[in-house]
């Protein structure tokens, strides 16, 4: 549900950048989304389409780049990459993993006219 709020955040950045950098239209927005960011991509795509209406990014393409989920294994003390929050440690099989990043939600760049 908070994908609407995320889209609002993108919209306000788009409008700010349009004023600061002087462009009228955005054709593409690229986001970096961590695997543990809790972002439902189809929901964000839908929200993006709706929320960008009337802004310079109306009709813009939305691209989401996945960033890996990293976690610290408390058993073997290694930083490992995992796909799912509940995956065991790929090195030692341990189950005590503390996420270290992977919760990124960033606007990387925009292609503008």
């Amino acid at each position, binding site marked *: 549900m908070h994908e609407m*709020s995320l889209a609002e955040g993108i919209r306000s950045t788009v409008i700010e950048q349009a004023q600061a950098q002087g462009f009228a239209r955005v*054709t593409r927005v690229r*986001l970096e989304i961590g695997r543990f960011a*809790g972002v439902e991509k189809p929901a964000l795509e839908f929200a993006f389409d709706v929320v960008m209406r009337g802004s310079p990014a109306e009709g813009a393409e939305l691209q989401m780049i996945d960033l890996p989920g990293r976690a610290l294994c408390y058993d073997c003390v290694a930083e490992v990459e995992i796909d799912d*929050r*509940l995956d065991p440690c790929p090195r030692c099989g341990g189950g005590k993993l503390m996420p270290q990043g992977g919760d990124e*939600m960033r606007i*990387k*760049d925009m292609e503008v006219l």
Partner: protein
Amino acid sequence: MCTVCGCSDGPKIDGKAHAHSHANAHPHTHDHGHAHHHAHGHDHNHAHDHHHYGTGDAGVTVPGMTQERLISVESDILAKNNIHAASNRRVLDALQSFAVNLVSSPGSGKTTLLCKTIAALGDHPLAVIEGDQQTSNDADRIRATGARAVQVNTGKGCHLDGHMVGHAMDDLRLSAHSLLFIENVGNLVCPAAFDLGEDAKVAILSVTEGEDKPLKYPDMFTAATVAVLNKTDLAPHCDADLDAYEANLRRVNPDITVLRVSARTGEGMDTWLDWLRAGLAGKARA
């Protein structure tokens, strides 16, 4: 520099300064499908011979052509929220006050825990921000204890954000060395992402919710510093396995502090109050 289309030397068109306003309408219906992504390998038949002004990020400037450019943004989607949260945090630090963001599913007993906590804290300075989609029922319950409370109704919103909390804090006019309780909208998903400026997120989980709840909603329990396992007085009546709750909490967050509490009977309340007082003392030292 022309800031409208990013060219470096402000070309003149028809003797006028290049002042076409992209702000109004200007839909740029290019009939070529945006196929030339800065490659400059395009073979458009325009007469002039390729005076490309900006070959870097600022892009190209050939009037009448598509002028795409890439703008590096590199900012958090929630940057605005984070600015509000940082401002709230500065206010709290200056007041040496300790704020907890109480997050849970609806019905975990947040408001009852708060009412009992307020009663147990006596005349300690504190205030409450109540977040709900609708009604002021919770703030009314808090005010009935004598504590100051502001109700924030989010409407359709599924979480409190830093901006809402900042305004609520303005209204509360916290005194120094206060405890601030922020009762978030009952929702185990969305509030995890929104920093309010709090010192700690406290997740409340009642023993009727199922031992695997932390596994189903890991993000919130990972973001939390403390989990209050509430309604422990009901555990025998619903075959709740408290150790399984704790094991699952630690599986998603090995650092989490788990406090077993029954707000109703008062069991475990002392440890919870000690944790709050320690947090407040930590702010005074900082």
